[in-house]
């Protein structure tokens, strides 16, 4: 009997008891998902390009939809991710959810930095890119004010930007799992300690920090859960097509990063993780002191209880520093990624953000 072809193996399995057949099919499906399955489609919400600068692009989503909320929302995400992370797939997209509810949503896509962008710093993003994007959003939407939603490092950038531009008409700020206090950032505090971590050698060698290095650091926080857990789940539930679809999307989300521009990384690790300058008003951006107390806009600060990358304590400390009269801190039951995608996000995070923004936009 020839076992080399799949057909003959399938024929042999057909003669086995039903339970074995099911197990075999599930196993085969899991192998197919890992080896043959095409990349899932992401970022499918219709959008138009408003403005570009170097690799960055500013998009407006679902421009044809009626905008019932006249205060536009600008989304700023992490420098290490791809722009589709908040628009993963239909039904699991924060952007789609917000635009369907009548919000005018814009996203500042950072693009993929090349080797020539290794000198890019936080200063450039905060003082050259975000202000221009804000201006474009206000002009395009013909609005007098706007809301900004920052995810992860994007939230940290948003806070710095808002603190340095107190006169801009920023009505609402939504921070989604963004770290502000680095006095205790979990295992990272130890790993990037100046005693052991040669930051300059890394930046000078790589230029831009490869996404694999960042991903390795994040996954090492929970090695078994991150390296083995997903495959155990897949093997166990590969016969459920809905699960397989979400699994492939989530794996793409996690593994599909972009390089971290070298100088920005040097600042991120050196001035934030190692010296914790932001929360102590010691951070200077192109010579200007960043005082978080300059933030007066309405603030919704969301943390996730199982987040190991931006742990809730790092996020919550912002509340004591800002001058906003209307400020809310919400701790949701999720992880750093599942706070933005998946059933829990659709059920909890999206309505939480949508309702709060609507209530605070005078709509």
């Amino acid at each position: 009997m020839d076992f080399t072809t799949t057909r003959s193996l399938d024929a042999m399995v057909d003669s086995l008891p039903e339970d074995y057949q099911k197990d075999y099919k599930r196993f085969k499906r899991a192998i197919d998902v890992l080896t043959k399955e095409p990349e899932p489609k992401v970022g499918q919400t219709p959008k138009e390009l408003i403005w570009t600068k170097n690799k960055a692009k500013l998009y407006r989503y679902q421009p044809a939809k009626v905008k019932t909320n006249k205060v536009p929302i600008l989304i700023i995400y992490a420098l290490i991710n791809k722009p589709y992370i908040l628009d993963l797939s239909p039904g699991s997209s924060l952007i789609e959810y917000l635009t369907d509810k009548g919000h005018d949503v814009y996203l500042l896509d950072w693009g993929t930095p090349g080797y020539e962008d290794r000198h890019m710093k936080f200063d450039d993003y905060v003082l050259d890119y975000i202000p221009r994007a804000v201006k474009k959003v206000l002009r395009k939407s013909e609005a007098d004010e706007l809301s900004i939603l920052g995810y992860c490092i994007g939230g940290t950038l948003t806070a710095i930007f808002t603190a340095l531009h107190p006169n801009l008409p920023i009505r609402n700020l939504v921070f989604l799992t963004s770290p502000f206090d680095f006095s205790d950032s979990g295992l990272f505090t130890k790993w990037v300690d100046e005693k052991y971590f040669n930051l300059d050698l890394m930046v000078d060698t790589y230029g831009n920090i490869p996404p694999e290095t960042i991903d390795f650091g994040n996954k090492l926080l929970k090695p078994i859960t991150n390296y083995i857990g997903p495959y155990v789940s897949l093997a166990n539930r590969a016969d459920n097509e809905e699960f397989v679809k979400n699994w492939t999307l989530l794996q793409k989300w996690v593994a599909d990063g972009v390089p971290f521009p070298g100088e920005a990384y040097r600042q991120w690790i050196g001035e934030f993780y190692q010296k914790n300058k932001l929360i102590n008003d010691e951070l200077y951006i192109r010579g200007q002191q960043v005082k978080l107390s300059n933030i007066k806009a309405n603030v919704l600060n969301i943390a996730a209880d199982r987040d190991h990358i931006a742990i809730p304590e790092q996020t919550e400390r912002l509340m004591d520093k800002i001058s906003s009269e209307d400020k809310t801190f919400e701790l949701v039951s999720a992880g750093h990624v599942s706070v933005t995608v998946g059933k829990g996000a659709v059920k909890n995070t999206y309505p939480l953000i949508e309702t709060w923004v609507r209530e605070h936009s005078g709509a």
Partner: protein
Amino acid sequence: MTKQNTLDPLALWKSMYEQTESHFSEAIHETLKTDEYAEMLGQVQNSFLQYQQLVRSTTDMYLKQINVPTNEEMSSVASLIVNLEEKVDSIDEKIEDELSSKEVSLEITKLKVSVSKLDKKMNQVLQASDQLDKNMHQILEVLTSNKKETPAETTSSQPKDKK
């Protein structure tokens, strides 16, 4: 009798994972948070980076010898383009700001009013010119008809003059 009576290696694997994951994770976490681990991680990373530096410098040297541009050189060209784009962008911003600024829009409105006034005046001038044209035409016609009448009178008077 239980429903599951076959040997499912995947279920076994899952069951093993579930039973051991928390213990292993805890043990690993205890290791990961030690100074020794951080030191070891730093040393491994340094060795790897030094190796990377060696590979990069060797590759750069080789590329230079065979006259192929290095990553550094290619990125210099890209930087020139980025800088140029930066300048175009800032000009674009200035133009946009100028066009949208109140002062300029006020000037443009004034200019529009002046142009429309000028347009009206031009129309009046053209109308007047048309009228003038018509008047001139009428005068010419009158003169021409007068001229036609005058020659007969002059012919009859000529003999008189000759006399």
